[in-house]
Every structure is written in structure tokens, then in C-alpha cells.
């Protein structure tokens, strides 16, 4: 279902895996240096954090939603899981949250395995609806966790207040996780795993008959995406120092995670990044221009409809349409993958 990415006519050297990897690391380093080079620009740091934050999650989502074509409306379940695992560990045992980052990731991956094995058998729209159910059930479970188990761990709706943490350290960690996420998605997309996922995307049954272990690959893709969403949760906990189920498990986050890759370019490596940039920067601009809290969702809703109707490949697709005029500027070259 994910359409073939457009031939952008970019030169071979630019699209090679090594160049792209280097580009990713370079961007990560530049962003990491922001607090060093512009120590007073706190707003820029905040913006950078949220752009990277959404980019990490969207990139993760894109692996199951874009590459494998299984659209999930419930990924906030993994974000919340990561946030609360790290948050609760930090609160109760005083362990540095960034150290619990891998634990949060693995916990979410395990959870994704639990829900993924039965639900990934479902086709397209049914899987999407199941994920809505999983996302909402996870939220309600988090809200009622303390009541169900008779403990005082998550503090339910009141929210969990966490100790202070150095914002700069979080910034570096975020940049590092971003680089990791991007390298992972690049490696998957260009490798055997990605080819298998795209085959499943195009035609699951046909892929089965030529030897693609569809169930196994889908579950793995979901686990990787859950891992990265959970790491974003940890980073959020460390930065904002306050967690509550409504924001961590909120349906609005799940919606954002569908919208961002779609706007940016479903199933492409850089699409989620473009989308995250547009989404965060856009949200920021809209909120400063108008006090109205509902304007963003109106714009996003319209954007979603327009994209689905006219340009399913979002920004990357639009770039593809610009290829002809752009091609006259750049060197003529062979197409990308």
C-alpha cells in the first residue's frame, strides 16, 4: 500500500548508505552542539528537543507503519510505557533515568510482542482499529494501575512528579538516540529486513509463498518501533520531570505519530524527520500566532484529508513532483532505490 518513493534524480554518491549515515551523524552532532554554541537560546533548545523527540518516535512508527504498511493508531502505548518505566524506577529507586533508557525500551518491546503476535495477523484496517483499542486500553490501565494492584506507584491521574534533571544532559542524550534511530531505520530500509517488510506491505500472502516469514518480520518491526517510542518516553520524563497518563498515553500522541510520517513521506527514511520538523515548528508557530487551542487539530485534520486525497507520499512526494524543474539544476543522474 505504501507507494514507491519517487525518483528524485539525486546523484549516486548522495544516496549511498554511507553518505546518508554520515549525514545523520553530522546532523546529530550539530544539534547536540546547540547548548554549547548558543547557551542562552533556551527556546531553540526546547524546539530542538521536541523536533528530535517527534522524529525519534515517528521514525520508529514508520518501520511498522510505513515499511510494513501496518498503520498503528496506538503507539502512544509504547511512549507511555517507556515514560512510566523510567519514571517509576527513578522515583522509587533513584536510578538515573537515562540509565534506565534501554530497560524502558526493552519493556516496551516485550509489551509490543505480547500485543503484536495476535494482532499483527489482522489485515490493514482491522489492525488499525485493534491498535486504537490497545492504545486506549493501555491508557486506562495506566490510569487505574494503582487501584488495580493496590499500590502507590504511578499516582494515576494526579501525575507523577519527578526530581530535577540537567536539561543539557537530556539534550545530548536525545541527539544520540535520534542518531541511533535514524541509523537503524536507514539500515533496515536499505537491507534485507526492509525489503522483506516492503514485500509484506505490497502483498503479504505472496511474500509468504516466496519464503518471507511474515509473522516474524512484522513482530520484529513492531518491537523495534516500540523500543524507540519508549526511549522517547524516557527522554520526556527526564526533561519535563512530570508524567501523567493523559499526555503520555494520550490519543493525541498516537494521532501525531500517524500524521507526522504521512505528512513527511510514508515509508521513506527522511520523511518522518521532515514531518516532525513541520509538525513541531508548525505547532509552535500556530500556538504563538493564535491563542485558540483547537486551531492546530483543525489544520492537521485538513492536512490529513488533503494528503490522503492528493499526495500520499507527503513532502517527499511533493519533492518528487518538483524533480523535473530541480533536475535542470542538479546533475543528471540515475534514480534512487
Amino acid at each position, binding site marked *: 500500500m505504501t507507494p514507491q518513493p519517487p525518483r528524485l534524480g539525486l546523484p549516486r554518491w548522495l544516496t549511498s548508505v554511507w553518505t546518508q549515515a554520515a549525514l545523520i551523524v553530522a546532523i546529530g552532532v550539530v544539534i547536540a552542539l546547540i547548548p554549547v554554541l548558543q547557551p542562552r537560546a533556551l527556546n531553540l533548545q526546547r524546539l530542538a528537543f521536541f523536533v528530535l523527540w517527534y522524529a525519534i518516535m515517528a521514525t520508529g512508527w514508520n518501520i511498522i507503519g510505513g515499511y510494513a504498511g501496518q498503520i498503528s493508531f496506538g503507539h502512544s502505548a509504547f511512549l507511555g510505557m517507556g515514560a512510566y518505566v523510567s519514571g517509576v524506577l527513578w522515583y522509587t529507586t533513584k536510578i538515573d533515568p537515562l540509565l534506565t533508557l534501554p530497560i524502558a525500551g526493552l519493556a516496551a518491546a516485550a509489551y509490543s510482542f505480547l500485543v503484536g503476535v495476535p494482532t499483527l495477523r489482522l489485515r490493514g484496517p482491522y489492525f488499525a482499529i485493534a491498535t486504537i483499542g490497545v492504545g486506549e486500553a493501555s491508557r486506562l490501565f495506566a490510569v487505574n494501575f494503582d487501584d488495580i494492584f493496590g499500590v502507590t506507584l504511578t499516582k494515576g491521574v494526579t501525575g507523577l512528579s519527578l526530581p530535577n534533571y540537567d536539561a543539557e544532559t537530556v539534550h545530548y542524550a536525545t541527539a544520540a538516540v535520534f542518531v541511533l534511530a535514524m541509523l537503524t531505520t536507514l539500515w533496515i530500509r536499505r537491507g534485507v529486513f526492509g525489503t522483506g517488510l516492503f514485500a509484506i506491505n505490497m502483498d503479504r*500472502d505472496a511474500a509468504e509463498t516466496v519464503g518471507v516469514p511474515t509473522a516474524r518480520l512484522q513482530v520484529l518491526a513492531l518491537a523495534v518501533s516500540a523500543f524507540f517510542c519508549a526511549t522517547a518516553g524516557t527522554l520526556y520524563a527526564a526533561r519535563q520531570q512530570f508524567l501523567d497518563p493523559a499526555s503520555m498515553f494520550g490519543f493525541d500522541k498516537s494521532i501525531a505519530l500517524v500524521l507526522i510520517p504521512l505528512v513527511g513521506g510514508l515509508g521513506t527514511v527522511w520523511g518522518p524527520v521532515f514531518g516532525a520538523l513541520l509538525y513541531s515548528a508548525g505547532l509552535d508557530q500556530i500556538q504563538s500566532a493564535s491563542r485558540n487551542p483547537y486551531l492546530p487539530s483543525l489544520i492537521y485534520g485538513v492536512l490529513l484529508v488533503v494528503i490522503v486525497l492528493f499526495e500520499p507520499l507527503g513532502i517527499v512526494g511533493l519533492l518528487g513532483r518538483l524533480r523535473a524543474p530541480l533536475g535542470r539544476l542538479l546533475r543528471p543522474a540515475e534514480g534512487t532505490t
Partner: protein
Amino acid sequence: MSGSILVGRGLTKRFGGLVAVNFVDIEVDEGQIYGLIGPNGAGKTTLFRLLSGVYAPTAGTVELRGRKIAGLSPHAVCAFGLVTTHQIVRPFADMTVHRNVLVGALYGRRGLRGAAAEAEVDRILEFTQLSAHRATLARSLTLARRKRLEVARALATAPDVLLLDEVAAGLNPTEGAQMVDLIRKIRGSGITIVMVEHVMKAIMSLSDRIMVMDLGRKIALGTADEVARDPAVVKAYLGERAIA
């Protein structure tokens, strides 16, 4: 060149009240082209799907080189050396011809990687005369080329047994003849072929052995000539009066 490679015993498939395949035995020898014909609704495609793992049998067994494969998932069956093509072709529409075949090479029995995989894809594209269309998207191909692509992708998995489901359907006489040549070439490379066909010319000229099915049962088995002359077969296709 002797010995059975694919054996089905007592294969039965029930869908609710309908018995699509009723206690059928099938024995395919290595290196053969084995044909399966019968009027519509005879159960041929269902039998095919039982052999390839898409359906699990209600009863009966399927053995590939002595290994039980009934009820295994299609990708596991592929790993053991049996691959199917589909009646309605299902290429990976938004992938190029090259990438379609590459999937088979990467995930097929030999699990090739890197340069070896690319070399194999080149070889198969050459073999199926699709090299010229390497960079074309599968959705842009003509039907004949899509059918060849389907076969190419299956060949990339390095099968011992290839199941062809109505691979000649919808082709004009020239394309049909090309497909027949391709099938002969495939057998020549040592792959056993089982094919379901309605295009009589193709299957009669190719098959070493033919099984005729009707209403879920085997009604005849033999060479093309033997089967063509069998009164039970004529009756199944043309009805009672044709005999009388």
C-alpha cells in the same frame, strides 16, 4: 531421475459442508512435469493449495522428499523447496522487476546476500527473458510479463518443486508458446513441475503425466494420450451424452 519427490496421500479438504477435495492420492516423480486438469470446481486449485501449505488439509498427508509438510506455513514450505505461483498474478506491484525477483533470492531456500543475490537475480531475469524490463515497476508490465515475473520470483527461491497455477491463462497463442518454452527450460534445469491448466494445448504437450479431477476426486491418471481417450474424462468434460 527416479523416485517420488512429492507425495500426497488421502488428501481431503472440507469447507463447512462442501468437500472440495475428497481423498486424493498424488505421486509426483522427480524431474517430471505433472499436469492437473478437470472441469471447473473439480478441486484442482484447492489440491494445489493443500500441497503448498496455503490450506491445511482436513485429512491426509503431504510429503516432500519424505518430509511431512502438510499444514506448515507457506514460507516454511518454501524453505523446504516447494514454491507456488498464483492463479491471479500477484507481483509486488510497487517494486521493480529486479526487486521482485530479489525478494525471492533473499528469502528463498538459499538465503543469498549481496553480490551473490544480485548475480542470481541477473541470471534469472536472463532465463525468463525479463532483463530488458529490470527497472520497470511490476504494475506497469503487460500480463504476459507479469506472469513471467511471477515465475521468475518463484525460481529465485531455488525450489525443487514448482507449482504453476494456470500460468498460461489469459495469454495469446504467441505468449502461450513462449510460456511453454519457458516451462520446458525450467524442467531442463532439474526442477520438478506440477501444473494446473485449462489451456489444453499447453498442458497436453508438456506433461509427462496427467491427473484428471472431477468433483473433488481423481478420475483418471496417465499420459496425455491415455487420458484424452478415457471415457470417464470425456464424460466429465462433455457430459453423459457425449459418450452415447
